[in-house]
């Protein structure tokens, strides 16, 4: 069980980091999603793994699973879900307006715009 959980977290994280280091927005978003899955499982495991145990503290129960990480992971899932939606929309917007989906800002953005019409006083129409 521990082995399964830890390898799952490790593989998800490794795959997520690999995808995040790609150049195009879609793989990067997939990467951040994988990372958020990894961290959700990790948070879930941070309260120790207990099988077939009640999640809420009650009188007379000896073995119980920690309820806090479950609440934390629920919050984290909701937030990462919302964030992924936002980044998908923004990536889509930037793809549609720029015509390409590279994450990097292209080199031409760093160039000084050539011959702005006020620069030398020429009227450019």
């Amino acid at each position, binding site marked *: 069980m521990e082995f399964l959980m830890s390898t799952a977290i490790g593989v998800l994280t490794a795959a997520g980091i690999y995808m*995040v280091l790609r150049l195009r*927005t879609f793989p*990067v*978003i997939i990467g*951040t999603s994988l*990372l*958020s899955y*990894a*961290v*959700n499982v*990790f*948070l879930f*495991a*941070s*309260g*120790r793994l207990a099988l077939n145990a009640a999640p809420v503290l009650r009188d007379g129960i000896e073995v119980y699973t*920690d309820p*806090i*990480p479950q609440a*934390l992971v629920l*919050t*984290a899932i909701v*937030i*990462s879900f*919302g*964030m*992924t939606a*936002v*980044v998908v929309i*923004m*990536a889509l*917007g*930037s793809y549609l*307006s*720029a015509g390409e989906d590279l*994450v990097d*800002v292209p080199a031409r*953005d760093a160039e*000084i*715009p050539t011959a*702005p*019409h*006020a*620069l*030398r*006083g*020429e*009227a450019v129409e």
Partner: protein
Amino acid sequence: MTHWLVAPVVLPAMLAAILVLVARFHLSLQRVLSVAGTFALLAVALGLFWQARDGTISVYQLGHWQAPFGIVLVADRLSTLMVLVTAILAPLVLLYAVGSGWDRRGAHFHPLYQFQLMGIMGAFLTGDAFNLFVFFEVLLIASYGLMIHSGGQRRLRAGTQYVLYNLLGSTLFLFALGTIYAKTGTLNMADLAMRVAALDAANSAGIRVAAVLLLLVFAVKAAVLPLHFWLPGSYAEAPAPVAALFAIMTKVGAYGIIRMYTLVFPPELEITRGLFDTWLLPAALLTLAMGMIGVLGSRRIDKLVAFSVIGSMGMLLSAVAVFTASGIVAALYYAIHSTFATAALFLLVDVLRDRRTGVGVWLRDAVPVAGGPLVAGMFFVAAIAMTGLPPLSGFVGKLLILDAARGSALVWWVWGTVLAGSLVAVVGFGRAGSQIFWRSHQVAAEREEDPESEAGEANTKEHDAPEPALPMVAIGSLLGLLVALTVFAGPVTGHLNATAAQLFNTQPYIAAVLSMPGKEIKDDHGDADAHDDAATDTTEEGH
């Protein structure tokens, strides 16, 4: 009375909802409500600041659940100070946004602005590490919306980068919190402080990893050197009022470092020894050097100001990393100063962008800026403040930092980097200022000799129409605050000394949070009664 403690979070949250639901299509109503809301926030922040000035630590239990089981908001000197700085910045930037018409250029500026304030206020006030994460997300998701306000290809691309970078930062934050919880079983900061102090140093690998991860998370927010790549692009491309508000967001990262590493991982703690002098201080100095070199190398004024933000964060964190009371005082003074100076500079850049026909923010020859003397004077004052020349507050802040570094082992490195960095920044700002305000007259003179070029003349005339006064009032107020910060440097540092003393004496904080009784839990059917208790017991809170 202590219900006021939650007001800085609830007020913007409710206002934002009202703005979306009721005033969605009424821009003037939105403006009135939003400005009124930020001034109300300022009043609340002043009240909280006044309440905490004598060292009172007020605690607010959300839902009246006792810490560490419930979430608490804590107002001590540091929190209320940061809340006050945010509350002063917010109305001024908002007035600029209204006066310059930025809020008209896209949908939902005002609600997003309020949500952003809610997140920042919550992050400063919360006493729970996971709640800190949640408020970080609130301020981030609002900032994503604000960042791409009014759209445009370049802004969207920069925005996408910004969001992706911060998503990774959030993931890292969760990993850090998960590790902390796994090792200590709590996320309440006061409770954490006790449990981390009690941990066995021989078996502390997990908590050390967590401490480093957490430092990385705050370093991403504060744009420390290897993690600063998100800042120049996004601050330069963000709409000006948003960039000015973002001036406080880098300070949220610095606040996180100060809060967590005085309370939970204090400098005398054996297991995290060396985190600051070995890692944070060199990183901060490199950040400072890189930021100032960026100032010198920028070809656009908005990038130049963005790099000066990185430089000032390096300056601030090198004072934090010394980690003595005098270091914290210097860092906090510099934080207040650089927040206002950065905001003023970003707003001035926007004024210049509008008025420099054809060249916008690029540092190229252009016709003289309309309304030159006023704008040039303001730029001069703001640049003096930012680079830390006398007589303004940047100079005072830098003196405090140099003085605080005297006890450090790396004192010559700190002095050398701070002084050389300032010189480079002075040259960078001087170059930009003379290019924008002086060289333009030479260009105009050349053009007058050349009868064919009428365009420049026509363009200056277009701008002769009276400018709206509100943006100038906003920028002028920010610069006035810098002057006030210089004039009242004595009382301010007096308060900051008390703040630093409170930060290093953690026992009252821990006692105030953990000893406050919450509601009594009777049995499974007692929920309704407990709720009534919460309503009646509130007068007993916070003592």
